[in-house]
């Protein structure tokens, strides 16, 4: 029997909206008791005094690049990055090579994740074959194989007719559709937000309208088909307005925002640093303010990273030639705390909710809560701990972060998956 007692922490219950002092006893990977003054018996004790003990964080939007782009990231290296970032589970996007549009690739991803043996990896399957936006994937088979959602992330479905059929079919199968909203004829050639900065820098812009048109279209289709729709990486105030209005009307729509979109603006592109090249692009002050407001009022349900690793040489080129994407797993919690919790945009419980129960609910997962009988997936957070971001310390293969040198407060100090400590910064464990 394997026992671990988390002693002296403050337990976060995002469902009840409470934080209370309690110990947690883990036996053979499951939580067996939550309460004050627990004794370990024969087991080990982890001293978590002064720390927050939260349900394991879930990142519902990562790119682990395997199969096909293992130089950027593998499922193993991505899993290490997740563990180091305090995440116990991730959902990975299907834009691999081959695309995760069939049972074999979904099975491969799950197998590789089990071999890595660190965090839970939930595959998201493609919505259309090859993510080409033409024919539907075998959604029922993909669900059976373990896919938790459907998305053509990065290759938005241009045809409204295809999207409509995909949503009808996905609803029947019982999988949510995650939409990367981008009207491709409006965004074509663009590399950053279209506005004053793109004008000054002379870089082709991606207007906010490119995102908002697709958000509007997909909301309308969700309403029409009844299919649950999750809007990935919302970046504009207009999208926020559309989602808020749709939710008020009862459309089954949810939404996520990334830490970089609520932290940075297009001003960060000023020196052509390719780590700021991301899709959707970094927007304006006004958009950042709208995203924070939407986080606070619940319009945005989830914080997800869109972790998108690339190799050094791919990013070490002219801005227009660099691929889109930045790594996010190992800076996410620090940014949530520094940018949202410390300034009072979100309470600690609200922040944790958007990283646990909310993504779990959208994906239909059991995880995201701390309760007796559940898997012991737990993230220990030190809300006071400060650190300057140093990409050289990342477990991810990707170093493409715009946050290098930024001081963050509120960091994960230990990550526990099914009772096993997969990351421990410096907490004492007495056997």
């Amino acid at each position, binding site marked *: 029997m394997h026992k671990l007692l988390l002693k002296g922490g403050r337990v976060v219950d995002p469902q009840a909206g409470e934080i209370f002092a309690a110990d947690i006893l883990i036996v053979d990977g499951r939580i067996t008791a939550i309460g004050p003054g627990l004794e370990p018996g024969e087991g080990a004790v982890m001293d978590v005094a002064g720390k927050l003990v939260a349900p394991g964080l879930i990142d519902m939007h990562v790119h682990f690049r395997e199969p096909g782009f293992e130089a950027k990231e593998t499922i193993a290296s991505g899993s290490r990055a997740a563990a180091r970032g305090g995440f116990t589970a991730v959902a990975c996007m299907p834009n691999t090579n081959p695309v995760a549009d069939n049972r074999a690739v979904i099975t491969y991803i799950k197998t590789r994740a089990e071999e890595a043996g660190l965090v839970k990896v939930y595959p998201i399957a493609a919505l259309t074959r090859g993510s080409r936006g033409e024919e539907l994937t075998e959604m029922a088979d993909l669900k059976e194989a373990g896919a938790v959602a459907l998305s053509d992330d990065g290759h938005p479905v241009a045809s409204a007719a295809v999207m409509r059929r995909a949503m009808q079919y996905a609803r029947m199968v019982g999988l949510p559709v995650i939409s990367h909203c981008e009207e491709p004829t409006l965004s074509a050639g663009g590399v950053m937000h*279209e*506005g*004053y900065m*793109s*004008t*000054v*820098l*002379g*870089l*082709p*812009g991606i*207007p906010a309208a490119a995102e908002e048109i697709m958000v509007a279209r997909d909301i309308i289709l969700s309403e029409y088909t009844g299919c649950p729709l999750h809007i990935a990486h919302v970046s504009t105030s207009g999208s926020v307005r559309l989602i808020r209005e749709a939710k008020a009307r009862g459309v089954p729509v949810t939404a996520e925002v990334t830490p970089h979109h609520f932290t940075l603006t297009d001003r960060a592109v000023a*020196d*052509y640093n390719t780590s700021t090249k991301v899709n959707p692009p970094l927007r304006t002050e006004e958009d950042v303010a709208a995203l924070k407001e939407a986080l606070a009022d619940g319009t945005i349900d989830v914080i997800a990273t869109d972790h998108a690793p690339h190799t050094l*040489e791919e990013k*070490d*080129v*002219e*801005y*227009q*030639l660099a691929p889109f994407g930045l790594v996010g797993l190992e800076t996410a919690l620090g940014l949530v705390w520094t940018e949202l919790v410390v300034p009072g945009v979100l309470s600690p419980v609200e922040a944790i909710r958007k990283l646990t129960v909310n993504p779990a609910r959208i994906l239909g997962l059991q995880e995201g809560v701390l309760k007796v009988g559940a898997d012991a997936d737990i993230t220990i957070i030190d809300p006071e701990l400060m650190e300057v971001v140093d990409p050289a310390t990342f477990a991810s293969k990707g170093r493409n972060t715009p946050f290098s040198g930024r001081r963050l407060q509120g960091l994960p100090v230990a990550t526990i998956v099914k009772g096993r400590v997969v990351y421990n910064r410096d907490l004492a464990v007495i056997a």
Partner: protein
Amino acid sequence: MMNWKRKDILGLQNLSAEEIGLILDTAVPMKEILGRAIKKVPTLRGRTVVTLFYEPSTRTRTSFELAAKYLSADSVNLSASTSSVVKGETLKDTARTLVAMGADVVVLRHPMAGAPNLLASTIPAAVINAGDGAHEHPTQALLDMFTVREKMGQLAGLNVAIIGDILHSRVARSNIWGFTKMGARVRICGPATMIPPEIEAMGVYVCTRMEEALDGADVVMMLRIQLERQQQGLFPSIREYARLFGLNRKRLALARPGALVMHPGPMNRGVEISPEVADGVNAVINEQVTNGVAVRMALLYLLGGGGMPDA
């Protein structure tokens, strides 16, 4: 007089009025050299200038090359197609190679905005931006300002109209920064589809009626319209473009008497500018070319270590 401190010239956005003034002042004696029977001084003897052009260009490349030769620098000219950049050696590697061969100044023309910034942060050699995408073309703006200052005596208080495809124009952007820093008022004018968003915040007045742009202008700067923009759906036809945004004698009469007509070249005669205006008394288009050599000599002098003991 202030001393020159910068390693590179990447754009005019970050130059002060004082620095721009120094460059223009330095170009005055350079222009005098160009008027001599023997157009050569030993100032940059032993220095090497490489022009690295990833876009076809005759005028700017030749201008830099001659500027280097008149100052006795060795100059080498390297042209590459962008496809080779995409497929093969990166810009940074190419630049490192040039430095390893002893380049002191690299003059870069590149279709992508920000390429000179990337280069400047990679190599110890001085980098001069000879045009990067739709970002900046500082030497063109400097020669434009030099020309206007020479003709008008000063830049402050002048009304400068820049007309045409502002969206894709690095010349427009550099001139906006340069002229506004020197105290001129800049208006821009073009089809609504070719006015980049929020450009007002650069300190310019925006209009889409040419008559408004020309009203009382001291300087009229026409931009080259690339004919393929029509196929991209940015304007309906060359015919309509010429009708709305072409400079002819009748329209020019709206500007101040003696207003200067400028064009960075190459011109589409009969489209953005009528031949009678291009060859008329107001046009300073050929002098722009001459002044381009003088201004580039000034920059090579300032960046290339001119004024060293062996000068």
